[in-house]
């Protein structure tokens, strides 16, 4: 009887085979599915903040500042309550994503239809503001922007905080 390969030898062959096989299946299935995932995605901040039609929700600091000075925008702070209390953009309302439904009920009366809503949190990769924007869109508010890394850029620019 032929001596069987040792488990180590078998593993050395099987591990790469398993990987290659899964790559091939994944590519094939993705190729033929209805909405394929692009093999190399665009994960830049502006692309991630785009809505389904591809319109970016991102707003620049300059534009946000103009809206602030004309009092044409309402700022919503998506960070936690303690972080909001430590300091926030002047006049911003607290809408912590952790407790978004309660917070929404409490401040929905203060959201005026004709003012642009600008959500923000802290950090280049913070998703809270994005999640909050998506939530508000679902709630029927159309004019929403996200100020990426909002707290940091606003404070560092020396703009009004409280």
């Amino acid at each position, binding site marked *: 009887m032929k001596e*069987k390969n*040792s*488990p*180590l030898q*078998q*593993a050395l*062959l*099987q*591990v790469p*085979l*398993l*990987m290659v*096989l*899964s*790559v091939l*299946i*994944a*590519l094939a*299935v*993705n190729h033929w*599915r209805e*909405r394929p*995932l*692009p*093999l*190399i*995605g*665009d*994960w*830049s901040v502006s692309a*991630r903040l785009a809505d389904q039609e591809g319109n970016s929700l991102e707003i620049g600091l300059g534009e946000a500042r103009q809206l602030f000075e004309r009092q044409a925008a309402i700022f919503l702070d998506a960070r936690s309550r303690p972080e909001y209390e430590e300091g926030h953009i002047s006049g911003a309302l607290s809408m912590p994503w952790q407790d978004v439904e309660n917070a929404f009920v409490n401040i929905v009366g203060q959201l005026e239809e004709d003012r642009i809503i600008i959500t923000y949190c802290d950090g280049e*990769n913070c*998703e809270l503001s994005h999640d909050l924007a998506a939530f508000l869109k679902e709630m029927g508010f159309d004019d929403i922007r996200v100020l990426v890394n909002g707290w940091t850029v606003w404070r560092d620019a020396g703009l009004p905080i409280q």
Partner: protein
Amino acid sequence: MPVYQFNKRVEPMNKHKHITTSAKQRILSSPYIWAYHLCRLLLGLVFVYASYDKILQPHAFAVSVFNYLVLPDGLVNLVALTLPWLELLLGLCLIFGVWLPGATVTATGLLVIFLGLLAFNDIRGLDIHCGCFSTETTEGPAGLGTILRDIGFLAVSLYLLLFVFVFRRRTEKFSQLHS
């Protein structure tokens, strides 16, 4: 006289055979074997279950992968597409008992990588969703519970690895020697 000699020659052989069969039976019915089959099925089902939602929701799973913030952007989608199929293949290998050396090595490797990533993101305070079994964000953020769960699976996987690479090989040699 020749009959007596014949009998005498046969007797020890029978005796010997009797001993080896019972030893073989003892090995086959030992709790280690049962634990091995149980672990194999359990881990296999875990991997198959984990792959299911990710295969159906590649876009959502890609976001989960991206949120770990460890891969270069160009690799996020490729990993998000491939990983669930690798998990499914692994799970099936474990359940049906094929390619076990390769499957146990890969499963253990994956679980170690997952554990490292979870711990890394927990330590640096990144508040992300696990994306382990479901792409739904209702699963709640990854935390200590997720890490402990992974350690549990890793223990199962290490037992299988040990079994396939050390114990099973010994048993095979033993039965070859005595059959």
